[in-house]
């Protein structure tokens, strides 16, 4: 086994350099954090940097592309990026609801439930951005075995303010954003397998050996992400991330929050990935001194315990990394003497909730409540992307604090109603606003909504389940336009998704409806024309 890694290493050194040889760097990292409610969040990030490379100019799409040779960068993904001239790509597949109050901000900001795909592409006359977006969706759905092909014009929008370009902007053409999300997408092993195939060492060596699908998909929250960013000084960076939140209290026998890699993943790292320039496990140490961590010789830095696993270091691979609380018998979250205590103040300064009230199937009230937990006023952007089957009545939009109308706290309201696309579909409606929330208050936004009556053919096969609505997004305002007093750095907050119940027609009735309605119309038509065209006579009726 060690010989195989030596061969891989030699092959890497002997790669011929006459092709378009770019230096590729691969780093992998695992962050483990014990959260305050006893759960454990693990974030894998596998970063491959293609140095000196840049995105393809979309104006040159008609011509033959220069040949690309990758050693560590995945070829399948690279081909897709070149084929559709994508500058920046973000794809996340998540399952579960991220609990911002107890878990804080995630290391990767894209935690919206289901599938979320957004890409920045340059405009070109050769092929339109929409055509490339459609090709990208289908290519990625084939690559990741996810039904991303259904993220069509009914779910696509361009919210450029909330989802700006994270990297540098190329100068060759003006860039456009396409964003779509599918909250009802399920994530499973079929998505993890192609994800692991994009790594240089796959799941044989390095940190990726820990990714046991049975354990990962059993977690309370799990999500994987593919992020491609172009940074002008470094090159194209591909980050594959996988975040999970495990619950050792639930799975352990004695209701303890102790964790170790074996109990979390049921796997151990046999050998490190030889092509990784750095490979480490970082444990974010919790507050307090009553925890213990083994093995006991990591490098400590700033509240973090780092275990370096790369093959270039002299470190022997630890068989198991464990954290335990020796003095604690069993973990009680906010319970003392079996009396529940009030919940702690949320970790994040903003807590959000979103619901649709209403008992009828035709209309409801969409209500979003934002709580400012910090002692300073916060200005935040609010983005709502609602599929066309829910009509938001903007003239009923209300902003309240404690049932008192405060319209001054909502500013810069922008609303794009659903716009008709080809084949009689409508794009989602987009509502964007800036909310100013005073300290320690709860702001409530409410508006009436209408639920649509869809055609027989538009309902999915499980029509009684309802339709998933993507979550609203709260995003920080850029420092230039607004002076936000928030001192922490966060990208986005996603509200949970909603499930709406739409009124359904009777699916067994097409033939019956046609014959009944046509019979009625024919009866009336026939009677009238009968009356109009006949002659009147006086008839004698013999008694």
């Amino acid at each position, binding site marked *: 086994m060690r010989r195989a890694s030596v061969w891989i290493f030699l092959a890497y050194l002997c790669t011929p350099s006459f092709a378009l040889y770019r230096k590729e760097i691969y780093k992998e990292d695992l962050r483990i954090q014990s959260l305050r409610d006893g759960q454990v969040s693990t974030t894998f990030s596998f970063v491959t940097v293609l140095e000196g490379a840049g995105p393809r100019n979309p104006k040159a799409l008609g011509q033959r592309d220069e040949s690309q040779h990758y050693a560590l960068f995945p070829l399948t993904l690279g081909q897709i990026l070149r084929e559709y001239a994508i500058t920046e790509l973000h794809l996340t597949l998540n399952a579960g609801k991220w609990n911002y109050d107890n878990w804080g901000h995630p290391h990767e900001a894209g935690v919206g439930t289901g599938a979320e795909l957004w890409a920045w592409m340059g405009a070109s006359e050769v092929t339109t951005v929409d055509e490339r977006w459609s090709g990208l969706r289908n290519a990625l759905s084939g690559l990741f075995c996810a039904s991303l092909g259904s993220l069509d014009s009914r779910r696509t929008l361009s919210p450029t303010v909330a989802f700006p370009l994270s990297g540098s902007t190329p100068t060759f053409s003006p860039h456009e954003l396409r964003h779509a999300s599918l909250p009802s997408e399920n994530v499973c092993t079929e998505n993890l397998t192609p994800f692991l195939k994009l790594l240089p060492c796959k799941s044989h060596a390095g940190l990726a050996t820990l990714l046991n699908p049975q354990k990962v998909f059993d977690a309370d929250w799990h999500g994987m992400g593919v992020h491609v960013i172009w940074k002008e000084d470094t090159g194209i960076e591909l980050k594959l991330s996988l975040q999970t939140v495990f619950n050792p209290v639930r799975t352990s026998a004695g209701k303890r929050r102790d964790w170790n890699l074996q109990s979390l993943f049921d796997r151990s790292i046999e050998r490190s990935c030889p092509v990784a320039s750095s490979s480490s496990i970082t444990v974010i140490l919790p507050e307090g001194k009553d925890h213990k961590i083994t093995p006991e010789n990591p490098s400590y830095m700033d509240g973090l315990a780092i275990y370096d696993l790369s093959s270039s270091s002299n470190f022997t691979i630890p068989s198991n990394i464990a954290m335990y609380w020796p003095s604690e018998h069993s973990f009680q979250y906010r319970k003392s003497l079996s009396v529940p205590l009030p919940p702690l103040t949320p970790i994040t300064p903003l807590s959000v909730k979103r619901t649709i009230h209403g*008992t009828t199937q035709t209309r409801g009230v969409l209500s979003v409540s934002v709580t400012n937990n910090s002692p300073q006023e916060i200005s935040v952007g609010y983005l709502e992307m609602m599929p066309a089957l829910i009509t938001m009545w903007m003239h009923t939009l209300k902003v309240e604090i404690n049932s008192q109308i405060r319209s001054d706290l909502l500013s810069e309201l922008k609303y794009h109603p659903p716009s008709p696309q080809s084949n009689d579909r*409508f794009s989602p409606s987009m509502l964007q606003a800036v909310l100013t929330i005073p300290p320690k208050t709860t702001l409530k936004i409410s508006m009436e909504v209408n639920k649509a*009556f869809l055609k*027989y053919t538009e309902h999915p096969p499980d029509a009684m389940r309802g339709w998933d609505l993507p979550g609203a997004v709260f995003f920080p305002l850029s420092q230039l336009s607004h002076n936000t007093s928030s001192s922490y750095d966060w990208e986005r907050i996603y509200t949970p998704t909603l499930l709406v119940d739409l009124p359904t027609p*009777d699916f067994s009735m*097409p033939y019956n409806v046609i014959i009944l309605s046509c019979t009625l*119309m024919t009866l009336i038509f026939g009677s009238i024309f009968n009356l109009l065209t006949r002659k009147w*006579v006086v008839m*004698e009726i013999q*008694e």
Partner: protein
Amino acid sequence: MNTPPAFSFLVCLRLLLAVLPLPGQNLLKHDHQLSSPLTSYLRLKEGLWLLDNNIDPYTGGSFHHSPLLLSLFSTIVPPLPIIWAISDAVGAWALLRIWRARQGLSFQKGTRSNVENLITSVYLLNPYLLLPSLALSTSTFENTLTLLALMFASQGKVSSALLAITFAVHLTPSSILLLLPIFMVLVSSPVSHLASPRPFHGNLKRIPFLFGEFTLYWLVLVGAACIITGGSWSWVRASWGATLTLPDLTPNPGLWWYFFTEMFDHFRPFFLMVFSVHLVIYILPICIKFQHDPLYAAFLLIGVLGTFKAYLTLADPGLFLSMISIFPEVHGYLRHPIITTLLHLHAALLLPLQHVLWVSEGRGNANFYYAASLVMGMAGGAGLVDACWAGMRIAVGDAKEWAEEKVDGEKGEGEGKVVWWEVVQQ
């Protein structure tokens, strides 16, 4: 103008209803029987909000009202309930004047008989017309404009009648059915000739000129609508295209919505065409058969609209039922008025009940409401067929008169033999 006492009383009552805050008014606005997506007050307010915020109201799929209404309520007057009350009053006044023109009476004096009180009450107190008006559905304006067009036509005022019908056609394209009867009333007279039919005695050569004038007014209004919406044509697809393509499948008492909900996409254009052409094919036969009394032909076509219109509300059969009061000569010849009344009663009770069961309570399903809409269709059809029969039967007269003529001609042999005479169609 001398109006009957009931008119002033009921108009005051209606204005009072508009001004006072009613407890269930918010529920009425959301009711699907009283307003359709084309006439709903909620969508009107939404369109006005979008216009205020510099967003084109016609790009989203929710606003289907005419740009004329948009400009009326954004620049001239806000959408207050009193406007609907005034519209109701104008409609009742127009109906009264149509009656006076039909009887050949002077418009100013009228008569003292109770018929005028009855006509006013039947229009203002008809729940099919009152409830949509309280729900602030714009179908009230459509009814008022139709009645105004008929009124001006009965008085012989060409330009006013054509302008009124142009406005009506702008708000509802299906009102085009009434164009030919109005032309015929303009060139002949509205006086009742149902009992004595004769070939059309008006000057047919004037009709193309009337049509030309109508087209001119129509083009002017189209131009005004384009200017209001800033030069775009998206309003055509959203407001007129809605009656032809049925984009919104919200339930209403009509026959179209469930038919096109359950229709496969492959057959949809064909059946949309069939349903639209079905409305149009009634025009010529009814106008030819009732050429001696074009006002009655207009009445029958209003009945056709009240049963088969695309986005039906209760106001459409309501107009038909209220207008029956200005044709008292046919009342004696109706064959089954009780059945029509009972069917309407059934439908009026079943429709809101099944709607609540399906949508609010979740205990029924869409078929319940569909069945109630079929009963409504039968009620409208029964009324229409009966009115058609009565309008023609009155021309034949009493069977006994015909019988007496015949017996006089004979030698009087048939004593002791009881003979019954019946007027039938063959």
